[in-house]
């Protein structure tokens, strides 16, 4: 085996979490008051502001060979983005060492540095140079970029007047024409329509076909499967498995890390989004039993805590497809309380999903609590939990009863249909 193009040795990254202190930056005032407090209290001020060490990455080692296309997968908070940021030299590691032999370009966001006031043409040059292209290189590729983005007619329009689709196309087009030895890509395919995503994937395959090394982070398992020949599975900042994509994907998807019950959700910020007026406190799927019989009803017990007075509380959930994390169900928003709720309230409720719908397999859950808006787009999020809980339908019944092979179901949901008026002539 030849020298690896990227060699990561014992890489660790520590963050200090400050609870109580919601702001990301420190104010000088706080530093001074804390110092003053320190003078008067000989004891360190515990309780007031608890600091907690958090290892986003912990002793990660791997090697990547030239020309490999490596997918980095793992659940939210597994350390994927931190790893990419260190590889792209944006943040420094706390321990360990990385050796990269070659020119690396990273694409952690589509359209980094795009300026809304500048025209498409100007932004191509600006963004290109931000991504590390020289002026000559950009000039050489200019026509190709414009053609790929399909924005010829709007080249001299400020990008603030672009539709979001055009914006994303232009941004990706610039990035796609980078010619580094190593391309580091984070979740950028999550934007744009299906047609464009396909085009992007195609472009990335072409790039890697030219002997370039690609490192790709995604939650989209279908994309990882299609693009990558190797995968690295991260969990809580450590490498769980590295190897051939299909093998690693199988481990990832069948990982018995399925949490089916937890009482500690309030302290979990990693997997959450939303404004936090109301937060999920406890969720128990199917009484905490890991496996669910696909023919029986699924019961989910939930409790939420109200932290600020809210006018109403609505609940919604979706069942997601395990390979792409896209919703496969369409569930209405249902009221938990249509009247105002005061801060401090604790509400618990149960939810029943009728049995017989889903086939055997693994389905992440999306749980949402918020305020209903006039339009769906105006819904206000108090809290959402994305793919932390899963429905894991397992059946011991055989094919003759289920009508399909439980270990290898064809499709995701059951539909009972009937055939009428069969005539044979």
């Amino acid at each position, binding site marked *: 085996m030849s020298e690896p193009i990227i060699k990561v040795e014992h890489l660790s990254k520590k963050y200090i979490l400050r609870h109580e202190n919601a702001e990301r930056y420190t104010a000088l005032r706080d530093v001074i008051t804390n110092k003053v407090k320190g003078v008067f209290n000989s004891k360190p001020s515990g309780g007031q502001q608890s600091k907690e060490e958090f290892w986003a990455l912990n002793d990660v080692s791997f090697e990547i060979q030239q020309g490999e296309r490596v997918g980095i997968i793992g659940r939210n908070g597994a350390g994927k983005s931190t790893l990419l940021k260190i590889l792209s030299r944006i943040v420094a590691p706390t321990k360990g060492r990385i050796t990269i032999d070659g020119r690396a370009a990273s694409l952690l966001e589509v359209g980094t*540095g795009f*300026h809304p006031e500048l025209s498409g043409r100007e932004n191509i040059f600006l963004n290109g140079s931000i991504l590390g292209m020289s002026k000559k290189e950009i000039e050489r590729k200019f026509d190709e970029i414009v053609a790929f983005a399909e924005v010829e007619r709007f080249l001299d329009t400020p990008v603030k007047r672009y539709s979001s689709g055009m914006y994303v196309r232009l941004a990706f087009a610039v990035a796609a024409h980078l010619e580094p030895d190593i391309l580091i890509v984070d979740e950028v395919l999550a934007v744009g329509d299906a047609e464009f995503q396909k085009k992007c994937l195609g472009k990335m395959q072409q790039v890697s076909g030219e002997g370039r090394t690609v490192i790709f982070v995604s939650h989209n398992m279908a994309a990882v499967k299609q693009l990558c020949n190797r995968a690295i599975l991260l969990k809580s900042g450590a490498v769980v498995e590295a190897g051939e994509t299909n093998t690693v994907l199988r481990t990832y998807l069948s990982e018995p890390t399925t949490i089916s019950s937890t009482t500690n959700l309030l302290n979990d910020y990693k997997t959450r989004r939303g404004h936090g007026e109301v937060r999920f406190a406890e969720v128990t799927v199917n009484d905490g039993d890991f496996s669910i019989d696909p023919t029986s009803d699924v019961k989910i017990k939930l409790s939420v805590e109200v932290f600020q007075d809210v006018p109403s509380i609505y609940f919604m959930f979706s069942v997601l497809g395990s390979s792409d994390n896209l919703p496969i169900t369409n569930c209405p928003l249902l009221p938990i309380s249509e009247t105002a709720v005061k801060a401090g309230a604790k509400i618990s409720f149960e939810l029943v999903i009728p049995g017989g719908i889903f086939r055997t397999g693994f389905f992440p859950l999306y749980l949402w609590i918020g305020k209903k808006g006039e339009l769906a787009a105006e819904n206000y999020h108090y809290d959402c939990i994305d793919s932390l809980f899963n429905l894991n339908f397992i059946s011991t019944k055989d094919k003759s009863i289920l009508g399909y092979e439980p270990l290898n179901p064809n499709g995701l949901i059951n539909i009972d249909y009937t055939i009428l008026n069969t005539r044979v002539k």
Partner: protein
Amino acid sequence: MSKHRIVIEPDTINSNYWKDLWNFRGLFYFLAWRDILVRYKQTAIGILWSLLRPMLTITVMAFIGWLFKSNIPDGIPRLVFVAAATLPWTFFSSSFSEASNSLVANSNLLTKVYFPRLIVPASTVIVCVIDFFISFAILIVLMVFCRYTPDIRILFLPLFLLLALVTSMGTGLYIAALNVKYRDFRYVVPFIVQFGLYASPIAFSSNDIYSNEHIPAVLKIMYSLNPMVGVIDGFRWCIFGGNISLNMQGFIISIGISILFLFFGVWYFRRMEKSFADVI
């Protein structure tokens, strides 16, 4: 095997830093270009703002100087005398405040791409240099209008522009790095600029301070600690030639402080640079 090898380790000084800085000169150029392009978008009078602002400052400062009967050397029109100080001051104040704010303003870049962070404040300062050249037209017009001809010493002017650049770069880098962590400096900077407008010899001449018997020696030293005193005195020395005598002691202190600021600014910036993306 490859000529391009990067080693990423915690807390090692990147020995390629200055080479990287050179490799990223394209970005430096494009960031400056962006700021120039964007600066006067959607404004009615556009680039004229670069002239109007210093012009108004000159008028106000000349008026204040006249009101308080500050001494100016014989044969020099007051407007020209004040303009010679206002232009470097405007350059310093705008480049200092823009550089201080530059990292936070470009935080989206800092958290998404690698490049030597020094490029960001440096490119904002360059934009201000261009503004300075534009506003220099005011001084030329004023000199023609008041029929004032400078002597050969005006050829030294670029040296003092360089000194102003060094001063604003050093202080700007230091505050920019601090601003990433402590946003308090967002409020400190406008205050420094406002205070400096009166503490620097713009409406008056440095000689008034150094030759005034009522001002204690300590205050005189403190006055010369302001690096812009050196810059402005230098500008006036270049433009007004023989009519101005330089207070060498104060002048040297000012220059020393400027250079010290630059070294300290770069050092502090480099030290904090690695953690920018984490804390911004």
